[in-house]
């Protein structure tokens, strides 16, 4: 029993690790009923389990309206600034350049979210070019939905973007989403160090997660839950009980994502060292 499962069995929040949820949303979603999709309930669930932070994009942003939805994401971050960071959603049909220009420097946003399946546009398409140029230039991580066999966001398309933009950090959301997708995602991450596997979904297991960590290392696998699209505890439980070393579990649950969110600080430090260098 590790400290996290010990806390679970005692029905108390865990406090042994900083847990960061790399894949969250907020708000209602038309396809199905979510009982309590707002930020207050999200914080309550995070507190119940001992999750420190979540990086989210509003459902409004991914489902319908990137501009209104990014504003909604910013409002959720404002609700609990220490607990949430936003993903800036870029819809290829809704002014990518304008959205990046409006929110790219806003500290409430720490990443970019792409959902090619929902927006019916391929990850490799030119309308996404401003995102990749931004990510390559800044180090801002890009979370993209992935799904094995999709015409819009299959794993070979992730690899193509990793090749074209080797400086970009690409979080492969759902890590391919299916058992076949997990195999493909592992192969891509092994070849492309900029690709990080994010593990939420409906078909993942702790055994799949442990295999990902064995095959690509704990610095290329991050915990995400998709909550409130899916309850946070489904994915979190898989990580809690998976066969990982303590160090690997700490990296997956929050260490790696915490580091990836430091891209602005890293850039500042880099600029500072250039200025002070002899």
């Amino acid at each position, binding site marked *: 029993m590790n400290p996290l499962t010990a806390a679970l069995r005692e029905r108390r929040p865990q406090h042994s690790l900083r847990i960061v949820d790399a894949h969250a949303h907020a708000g209602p979603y038309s396809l199905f009923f979510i*009982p309590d999709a707002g930020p207050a309930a999200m914080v309550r669930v995070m507190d119940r389990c001992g999750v420190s932070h979540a990086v989210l994009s509003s459902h409004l942003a991914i489902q319908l309206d990137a501009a209104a939805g990014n504003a909604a994401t910013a409002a959720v971050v404002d609700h609990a600034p220490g607990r949430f960071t936003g993903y800036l959603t870029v819809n290829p049909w809704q002014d990518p350049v304008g959205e990046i220009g409006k929110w790219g420097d806003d500290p409430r946003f720490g990443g970019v979210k792409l959902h090619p399946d929902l927006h019916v546009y391929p990850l490799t398409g030119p309308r996404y070019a401003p995102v990749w140029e931004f990510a390559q230039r800044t180090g801002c991580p890009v979370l993209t939905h992935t799904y094995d066999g999709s015409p819009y966001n299959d794993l070979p398309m992730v690899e193509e973007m990793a090749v074209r933009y080797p400086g970009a950090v690409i979080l492969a959301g759902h890590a391919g989403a299916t058992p076949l997708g997990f195999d493909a995602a592992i192969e891509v991450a092994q070849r492309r160090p900029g690709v990080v596997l994010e593990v939420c979904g409906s078909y993942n297991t702790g055994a799949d997660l442990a295999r990902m960590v064995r095959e690509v290392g704990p610095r290329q696998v991050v915990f995400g839950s998709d909550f409130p699209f899916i*309850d946070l505890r489904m994915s979190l439980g898989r990580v809690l009980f998976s066969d990982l070393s303590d160090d690997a579990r700490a990296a997956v649950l929050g260490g790696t994502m915490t580091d990836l969110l430091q891209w602005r600080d890293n850039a500042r430090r880099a600029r500072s060292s250039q200025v002070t260098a002899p």
Partner: protein
Amino acid sequence: MSSRGHVLLDADAMLGRHPARDVGAGTVAEALAGMDRFGISEALVGHTLSWLHDPRTGNQALLELVAGQPRLHPCWVMLPDTCGETGTPAEFVTAALEGGVRAVRAYPVDHGYDLAGVDAAPVLDAVAEAGLPLLLDAAQTTWPQVEAVAAARPHLAIVVGGLGYRVLRQAAGVLARTENVHLGLANLSSHCGLEWLVERFGEQRLLFGTGAPTRDPAEAVTRLLWSELGDGAVAAIGAGNLRSLLREKVRVA
């Protein structure tokens, strides 16, 4: 068992191999080891042979596998009696009760029949008369079918598992209009859905189940123990409700 004494009885587990998932050999030893890993005391188990090959031989094989295993309780798979594959309805339930079977599971989609149709009615009537709970996976039926079967047999306890996160609108309607439909926790994954269901319909309508081995038991265990429910509700959902269904419903053979 947790340090706070929560016993977990898994109402949704399976022995046997799976042709399209890497779930191991599905042996009794593997099932027991998995239960120990997740703190699960006992489980109601079916067998993939009954689901994915032949119910008649699978049901018999299951009894042999769980004989002498006090932590594993057999769950048979039913079929309509139209082709006589599992005997007449009376023969089926008599054999089930004599074999110590505690519940019956149906796969209407995979086995090609209408759960609410006339073909399945005689065996469902017999299952209800015997007091055996009927277990279903949400993907194997429709909510109107569940409601029709439940309404026609008010004393038949029905447990629907594998809901996912997209069906609360339908499930809530059926729960509101019936008293004998329950939900299992295997992949019950709507955000805050467990708490919402308990508040709206009562903790007695929910039963712990994992969906193992195709689903990771970590999901249901974590969902329940880190829920916002009180210890009493967790105890009921974790074990008490299933015990009640099995104890109160099954007629002595």
